[in-house]
């Protein structure tokens, strides 16, 4: 099992969710986050007071998937979240040691 974490542009969230549903991903977790990468921040000017905004808003999605789905998941996210411009985000993949479905007590791939 793998945990796929992707940082994407906020307005790409719907497209990514649809793409993942289409290939059979059963659920994802979404968090609004801030951060910086190569895109960097911008400056804002209020009546002559200038503020540098370093952290830009992004969306983080997390999906736990079976090993055999990994490649398709990565491909779907990459395709759906791509604009070709700087700041499109990144995908991180982790090994997942255990999964438990709280309601039934199922564990492992059955719980996904």
């Amino acid at each position, binding site marked *: 099992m793998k945990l796929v974490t992707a940082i994407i542009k906020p307005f790409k969230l719907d497209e990514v969710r649809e793409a993942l549903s289409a290939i059979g991903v059963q659920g994802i977790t979404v968090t609004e986050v801030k951060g910086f990468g190569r895109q960097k921040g911008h400056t804002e000017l209020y009546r*002559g007071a200038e503020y540098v905004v370093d952290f830009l808003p992004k969306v983080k999605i997390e999906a736990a998937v079976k090993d055999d789905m990994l490649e398709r998941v990565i491909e779907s996210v990459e395709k759906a979240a791509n604009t070709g411009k700087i700041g499109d985000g990144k995908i991180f993949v982790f090994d997942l040691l255990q999964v438990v479905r709280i309601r039934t007590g199922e564990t492992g791939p059955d719980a996904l």
Partner: protein
Amino acid sequence: MKKIFTLFAMLCALAIGGVVHAADTPAAKLYFDTGKADLPADAAKAVAPLIDQAKSAKVKLQVSGFHDKTGDVAVNAELAKKRATAVQEMLVAGGVPADMIVLAKPAETTGGGDDKEARRVEVAVFVADAAAPAAAAAGAPAAATATPAPVPNKGDVAWMLTSTAFVLMMSVPALALFYGGMVRSKNVLSVLMQVFVVFSLISVLWCVYGYSLAFTEGNAYIGGFDRLFLKGTFDSAKGEFAMASTFSKNTPIPELVYVAFQATFAAITVCLILGGFAERVKFSAVLLFSVLWFTFSYLPIAHMVWFWPGPDAYTAANVVDATNAKAGLLWQWGALDFAGGTVVHINAGIAGIVGAYVMGKRIGFGKESMAPHNLPMTMMGASLLWMGWFGFNAGSALEANGSASLAFINTYLATACAVLSWTLGEWMFKGKPSMLGAASGAVAGLVAITPAAGNVGIPGAFVIGTAAGLVCLWGVNGLKHMLKVDDTLDVFGVHAVGGILGALLTGIFVSPDLGGPSVVSDWVTGKTEYPGYLAQLFIQAKAVGVTILWSGVVAFVSYKIVDLVVGLRVPEEEEREGLDITAHGESAYRS
């Protein structure tokens, strides 16, 4: 602005009591042939000066017919009426509006030195009144004409009540929203709360002693205590309301609406100051400072600029000097301030920056982000200010008339000009046209047109509005950095700078050569005379200087007193956590 108090003597009481007098010394007498109602040959010439007076000064003419003692009483009475009617028709033909002529039957229609003298019609200037002429014109027997106490015009009263509510809206919620949007989210409630409570506090003090000290006769600097707790404004036993004068003779409004209107001005002025030291001041310090500064700066400045005995006090040339001497100092100088450039905006702007200076910068100023937390709130506040300002400026005409209309369009136009000039200036010099800039431009334009509103023509509105946007843009950018003061919400850069600009330009654009209405130089006749660009500009500059000095000194001393008594600033920890939680125990937003 104005003020004098005339007690409301009920017209009907006079009429019922049968008190009768001629309106004035007759200004023209026309003599008729025996038994005839044909106009004498010299009639037109005799009444020509009166027709001119009626048309230019808007006074009513009273026409009374008489007859000699020969003949039947009823026939003679009819004859006297016919003679008066003939004269009335001649006056109408001469251009006097029919409703400006009062046919008044004298109590005794016979009389005069001899019969020839008795067969006459008298035409005199009549003190305007709406009720009596109807009765007289209808031929009511024994119609009595007195010099009646003027009755307020319902249109004027309705407009002033409306304007007063508009100006209240400028503080709560407009100014509170405008300011609240510009602070950080941890302090928004503290700003809303300060505006809400200070507005209420000053309104109460206004009715206790503020109105009396500002708008009753005293000396050139401060009024007296005649109206403590608004004593004497309403006689409940007789059901009589005291009257306040406007800018037109015999055109009073109930004093209570003037009290309320001016209350909203006093209250918003103190609220404006709050922007200078927002995000770090103690709530108790805000309240104590408000009481001190209101009492020792707002009240004297309002008295000095706005108190005068009113146009009705100027009855003849020989009372002018004595009447002038009762007015406030700056009024006597001839300083023009239609709706509060000095009294409200310079006054508050100076107190604000002195506060920012005495209190010191916010923790993290220049290092941490102090960006506005909710600019839509600021935009809504600015928009409501714009709307409310129609009450502020056009209401300051105190009547629903041409002057109010002029103030209205100027308030509309200058503000739009300032939005454009600030936006274009910011776009050119700072890169992007911002919403905060447009909202600030609107307020800058409103501030600058305030002293000018009814004192300049359309050209003045264009120039003052456009200049205000650019000058105040510099005020919150260049000037603010030069002063090195943390004036949180730019009370100085917008209100003091805009107020000074408007006050000075008012002296220029009041000139009739630049489309302005000029300056009334003689309140007996209403004659206007512009003293000249340099002369009026100098008067305006002196008024600005007095206001800056007075407000600056009073504010400085008041802050020092407050610092000794309750302390000005909150502790550092509380400032970091935010005043909403630490001072008021609540948060504006939950997630």
